[in-house]
Each structure stands twice: as C-alpha cells, then as structure tokens.
C-alpha cells in the first residue's frame, strides 16, 4: 500500500476538507442571543450595531469588550431572534441589521487581537415595539 498516495486521496478529499469548526448551524438558529453553548461570552461578540455600511456589507458593533467590525459574506447566516416575543426565530437579511439593534456575531475563525472579520452567523434581537 502506498500510504502517501492514500493519504493524498482519502484524506485530501474528505478529512481535511472537513477540518475546522464542525458545529451544527441549523439548530443554532433557535438558540437565543447569549445562550449558544460553548460560544456565547467566549467566542462571540454581543453588542449593539453602531453603523451599517451596505456598500462594503459591514456592520460596526460596540461591545463591552471593544468594537468589532463584522463583514457579511455569502456564507454568513443572519437570524432574527424573536424568543423574547415567544415567537419562532426567522431567517433574516442584511436589511435587518440596523443601528441600535442588539446582535450576537460568531466570527469565522476569530483570531486573537483582531478587531473584525467575516461573520459565520449573526443573530439580531427582535423586541416588542416601545
């Protein structure tokens, strides 16, 4: 057996492609802001949207730990967290990201010291109108 060939074949096609985060994103949608197990408070940014740049598809967020600039990509999933209204969470769009809204952002492979980057998902809190 040519182990090297096998490594390139099988591992290259499957195992390495599968490297990286392996979280199940679909049930993540139903988890309220701040409650994602193992992520919230450790690997996510929770704060308020300060500014939205539609042209660059970026969102500036002010969080207790500092500012964060989230880039919305084709891969970014946006969800509307309506759990405080006791209603089902919904899929959202970039248009749902408005200044003043409370959001939780999961950066894609966040690096220490970075102040922004592509977002894997963004949850937007939807509250009752005042």
């Amino acid at each position, binding site marked *: 057996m040519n182990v090297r060939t096998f490594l390139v*074949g099988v591992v290259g096609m*499957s195992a390495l492609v599968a490297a990286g985060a*392996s979280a199940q994103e679909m049930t993540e949608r139903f*988890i309220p802001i701040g409650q994602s*197990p193992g992520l919230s408070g450790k690997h996510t940014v929770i704060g308020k949207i300060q500014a939205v740049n539609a042209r660059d598809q970026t969102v500036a967020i002010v969080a207790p730990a500092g500012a964060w600039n989230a880039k919305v990509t084709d891969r970014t999933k946006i969800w509307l967290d309506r759990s405080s209204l006791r209603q089902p969470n919904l899929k959202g769009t970039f248009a749902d990201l408005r200044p003043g809204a409370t959001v939780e952002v999961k950066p894609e492979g966040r690096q220490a010291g970075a102040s922004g980057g592509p977002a894997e998902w963004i949850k937007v809190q939807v509250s009752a109108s005042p």
Partner: protein
Amino acid sequence: MYKRAAMIGVLVISLAGIGLSGCKMAPPPDRQSQLIAKGRDLFFNETFAGNGRTCGTCHPAENNFTIDAAFIATLPKDNPLFVAEFNPALKENFENPALMREFGLIQENLDGFDDLKNKFVMRGVPHVLALRTSVQSPAGPRTGWSGDGAPGDGSLRSFATGAVIQHFTKTLNRVPGVDFRLPTDEELDAMEAFQLSLGRQQDLVLPLRLKGTVPKRGQAIFLDNKLGKCNLCHVNAGATANFGGGSLGNANFNTGVEDLPDQPARLTGKAVPRDDGFRSPGDRTFNVPPLVEAADSGPFFHNNAIETIEGAVAFYDGDSFNNSPAGAALKKADPRGVGIELDGTQIVAIAGFLRVINTLENIRQSIELLEASRAAAASEEKRRNLDRAIRETQDSIRVLEGGGLHPDAVAHLQEARRQTEKAARSVFFSRKHTGEAIREQKAARAFLAE
C-alpha cells in the same frame, strides 16, 4: 411457647445478621461521581419542558443506548418516541412513524428548517458508548453521524442543546421557553460527564490473543493493510484513522453508503432524500463509528441500511464502496489497483472477529456492573446495575450464537445470566449469586481470548 418464640427471635436476628453482613458502607461519592449521577438523572428523566422525550427515549440503557425496530416494537403506543402519532402539532414533518417503526429511523433537519416537508434526512440512532475514544479529532470534536451534530462550539457538551431543539419540541415553531427549555450550563456539564462515562474509556490494543480459529483469521484480515484494510480507518477496531502518518482522530469519509442500491427505507416508496452528510450543503462525508460496540448495536451505517454485521462488512466488498471517493483512493494506493476485495469466508471471518471483540467488551462491562452492584449502597442502584448486566449478558449470548461462535463460552454466559437473575431476585444471597455470575463471565471470557 417461650421456646418457640425464642427460636424465632434467634432466627430473625441471624437472618438480619446475614443480611447486614452483605451490606458494606459505600464511600461517599466524589465530585465527578456526583456529576455523573446528576447527568444520568437528566439523561433519563429530564424532558426539558418539551414533548415528553428524554435523551434516554432514543438512547435507552437497556438497548445499548440506541434503538432499533425490534426494541421499538416492545414499546407501548404512548411512549414519547411515538409523539408524532399522538400529538397533533407534531403529526406532519416531525417524524416518519412508518420508517421509525420498520427501520428505527429518526427525522433530522440538518440542512435547515425552512422546508420541513422536503428538506430532511432519515438517520439511525448511534449508541453513545465509548464516546471518550471517538469524539475528539484534530479538526475539532465530531458528534453524530456526520460529525456536525452539535450547535454552539460543536462539542459533545453542546450536543444536548441541539437535540432538545430538534427532537424535544412541542410544536414545529421551536420557541425556547414555549416549546421546550434549553439545558443550563450545569446540566450540559453533567450530561457530558455521564455520556463520557459510558462504555470503554480507552481503545483496544490489537492483535488480541484470540482462541477461536475463524475470529483469529478475521482479526488477521482486519489488520492486513493489503487485504481487509479495515484498520486504516478503524485503528484497533475503534473510531480513529491512521494511514501511517499519525492519528487523524475521528475523521470523515465518503464511503458511498448513500449510493447503495435497494436501501430498505427507499424500498417503501416513501420520500427519503439523499443525506449529504457533513455541513450544509454537505460534502457527503460521514464520520467513523467505533467497531468494538458494533455487533450488538445494529442496524448499520447512518441510514440503518444494513441489518447484520456480516452485511456491514460485505458492504466494503461492493461497488458502492469501491466506486466511492474512499474506495477509489484505496484502489489508487494499491499496487494491484484493488480497493477492498473479500470472499464470503473472509467476510464472515471479519464479522466473527467483530462479534468476539463485542462479546469481550460486554463481558468486561458485565463484570464491572456486577461488581458495582455489590458495592452499591442503594437498592435501586444495585438493581439497575444487575438489570444492565443481564442485558449485556443476553447480548453476548445473542452475538456469539448469531455467528455460530464459541458454544462453550455461550454455556457459561447462560449460567452467568441465571446467576445474575437470581442475584436480582434474592434478598439474602444476592452477593453469593453475583460472585457466581462473575466467575461464569470470566470462564466464558477464557474461551474467547488468552
């Protein structure tokens, strides 16, 4: 009359003495044991304010922490597993009761909840044994059939949160606080500790010194990287891969299971969409399950496509595997250009080997449970351990008999089961029968391996 009363008194005191001599004061549980006990209670009893299901609904201890059609057939019709049959809010697009009852399949929405009628997969329930040996991977934790079963950080600890959302909900709205409650951090810690405590805590070291002629040959084929090639992806019959460059941990592969012709669930004519595996959209890969626990926890593969362990081994000799990316890579790496090519006797030999290592693990667990029953302070704990030991022993008998293997060991296992049943019934001689059962388990083991 006084003499008779005195004799009765002496008898009562003597019997009480015998009884008490059987009671040993168990040491107080340490913190980890307390956490595991709490996790066990949550796993089997906590519904998280949902539709009535618990983790144990699909992972019952009495059936190797998994479900299959035979086990499902024993459940009463109001069991929460069948919630789609009696809760109108879950009647459509939550489960497929016919496929659940005939093939033990569960509905999952791994590619999203936007089109429940058309976007779903039907999967078997993996057991949760030996997770300590199978979850970790250099690429991150791998949970569920495709390795991406948990939300949050993707860890085993987070898995329960996703399971509650998918399987415990009262309605398809899936609103936390309305349709269920999410587990707390403390509950996730406890359930993780409990699950990690189940089954093997470490991998085998092959080869074992097996005694049976056919299982011994099966082990040799299993370990032969030019013939069986099994050990490349199932190192030591576990769930980790190693192609010579170090452990890859629990890796994902596309082995072509979805390409199998005549898949049982699809033969019914019901809509069963292709399962695209890891991630969304998926890359068609699935992760590697451990094999030590396989023989008594079928059906096999993520879609319960194959019922028997012999059939599961034979899959790797077929076109679906050999034309898959994993099979093609094996062919390419083989000097003869062969993927996996086995004959009938070789398939049965490998399955025989898997049956024997499964039985050895069941014997190990049975002895552990029997010893734990002797040390248990509470009668409920003692009873629970004895009941599980009986189930494990029944599995051992079934697994060996199913392959026509080791009738000599089977005879000892049958006696071990009888003694364990007596221990469970007896008030005063439970320890004696438990000791006998342990001796019979060891006698059976001696026939299987040195």
